[in-house]
């Protein structure tokens, strides 16, 4: 798949007055977004997500490194003709919704009947066609975000870059936007989505990247990333629930508990030695929130401090199982 958005070893420093203070927003940032995917871009506040988006749009320039959008260097107006962009905290001119969307459509080269039709389609898509004559100054924050989406899709772009597109939306509107994004993907469009709404990202994104303090800390498919290589869930039968500190009793005389992956073999042997039977051993599936907290320092990655799984007293000579990835 060709990359539609490509960041190549980019460093972005913001310098204060007289260059006395420098803040590094992006640190050797490399990322590729492929055609036809919904790419989730995650990171805590100040991680550099918006800076990366602004670099792609050509609003800011990299201190080092380079990047391409739709095959052209960042900042090329001709590439932006095929890009729909929605900024975080969208700021638009105060005028009737339809006039406003027409204005942005015309800036991207639409005119005449096409402009009229596309404007009305965009307003309809975001559910604001019935408000087309109302001035956006009187819109709520959620409606402003929807009109921002309308101006982003009015010219039927190949690539959509959305910075927090659903942060102000109610669940119904959020669902509608999600459906819209899935529909756009089914039509071959690429979507680069920065969001704090992890559940939403988990639901619709084909790949995700996590950024922390300007550095890319993880990229991959959600299914791969959410599968923990450090924790294993064991279901056993025929042993008392008190045998393992974190065990919970289940139906059919079963117990279920989490262990560290390195203790897998020892645990299985222990269950057998107690006369029990292993029903299943499977890697623990984390939530995206767990992963996010781990990667961004919200939760320590140190195995010794890992969640509240009590460590089993594994004998030092027990061979460790190394999981092949």
């Amino acid at each position, binding site marked *: 798949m060709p990359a539609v958005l490509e960041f190549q070893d980019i460093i972005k420093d913001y310098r204060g007055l007289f260059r006395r203070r420098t803040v590094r927003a992006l640190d050797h940032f490399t990322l590729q977004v492929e055609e036809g995917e919904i790419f989730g871009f995650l990171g805590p506040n100040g991680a550099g997500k918006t800076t990366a988006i*602004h670099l792609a*749009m050509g609003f800011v320039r990299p201190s080092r490194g380079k990047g391409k959008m739709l095959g052209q260097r960042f900042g090329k107006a001709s590439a932006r003709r095929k890009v729909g*962009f929605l*900024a975080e905290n969208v*700021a638009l001119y105060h*005028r009737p919704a339809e006039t406003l969307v027409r204005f942005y459509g015309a*800036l991207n080269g639409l005119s005449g009947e096409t402009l009229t039709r596309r404007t009305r389609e965009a307003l309809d898509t975001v559910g604001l066609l019935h408000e087309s004559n109302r001035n956006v100054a009187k819109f709520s924050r959620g409606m402003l975000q929807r009109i921002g989406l309308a101006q982003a899709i009015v010219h039927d772009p190949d690539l959509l870059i959305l910075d927090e597109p659903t942060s102000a939306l109610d669940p119904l509107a959020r669902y509608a936007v999600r459906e819209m994004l899935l529909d756009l993907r089914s039509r071959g469009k690429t979507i680069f989505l920065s969001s704090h709404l992890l559940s939403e990202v988990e639901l619709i994104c084909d790949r995700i990247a996590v950024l922390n303090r300007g550095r890319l800390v993880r990229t991959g498919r959600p299914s791969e990333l959410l599968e923990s290589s450090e924790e294993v869930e064991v279901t056993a039968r025929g042993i008392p629930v008190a045998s393992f500190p974190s065990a919970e009793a289940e139906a059919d005389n079963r117990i279920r508990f989490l262990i560290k992956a390195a203790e897998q073999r020892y645990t299985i042997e222990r269950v057998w030695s107690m006369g029990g039977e292993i029903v299943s051993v499977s890697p623990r599936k984390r939530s995206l929130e767990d992963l996010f907290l781990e990667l961004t320092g919200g939760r320590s990655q140190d195995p010794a401090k890992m969640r509240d799984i009590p460590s089993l007293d594994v004998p030092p000579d027990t061979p460790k199982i190394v999981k092949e990835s």
Partner: protein
Amino acid sequence: MTHFRPIWMIALNFVREQRWPILVLQLSVLGLAGLGLLTDSRQDREDILLLFKQLGAYGVLFSVFFGGSALYNERRSRRILAVLGKAVTRRDYLSGLLLGVMLAAGLFCFVLGFTGTWVLGGIGFSVSYIWSLMVCVLAACLLASSVALFYSTHLNPWLSALFTGLTLGVPGAIAFQFGGWSGYILPVYSLMRVFIKASFEGPPATALSYVVVAVAEAVGLWLAASWVFGKIDVAVAVD
């Protein structure tokens, strides 16, 4: 023509966003028309001419205000992002703003010229002279706003106005002191001098060369502003 369309749209959008200051400016010109109606214009004709000149000077000041604040307001409000997120180059964007300022200044000069024709023309001032003076004011507005726009690419409106004042004032002082060719260095002073010196008695002064030089220098400043604006981070507010 399709390339010019975004520039024209940005210019019209600028005028729409600045409609209240522009309206106030036009209303001030109507004060001149009111004087023509309410006073004995033949007896007070020097006072009316003085008011006419004052209004022309205000036009140049407003152009500096518009040119110096347009970009800053757009960046501060972050509205610039949605516009530059489209297929609009930074040079086109600046061209649109400058054209917007010139539309505002052009409207002002037209209304002032029209009112001047009606009030001053009726008391013996040459109508063609009034319109040639309006061309001088418009050229001065173009040059002054280009300087202000250039500074506004990297300074806030106050500093932009300060540096615009210095940039136009220093050549003006040199021209006042030495005259001759020095009057062609950013000739806002020279153009406004022609305007301020206009009288009922004196022969109409010609300022075509100053107008041509002012337009050429404005183009140079626009290119310089586009170059600087193309290098900076627009998503970061200038404060």
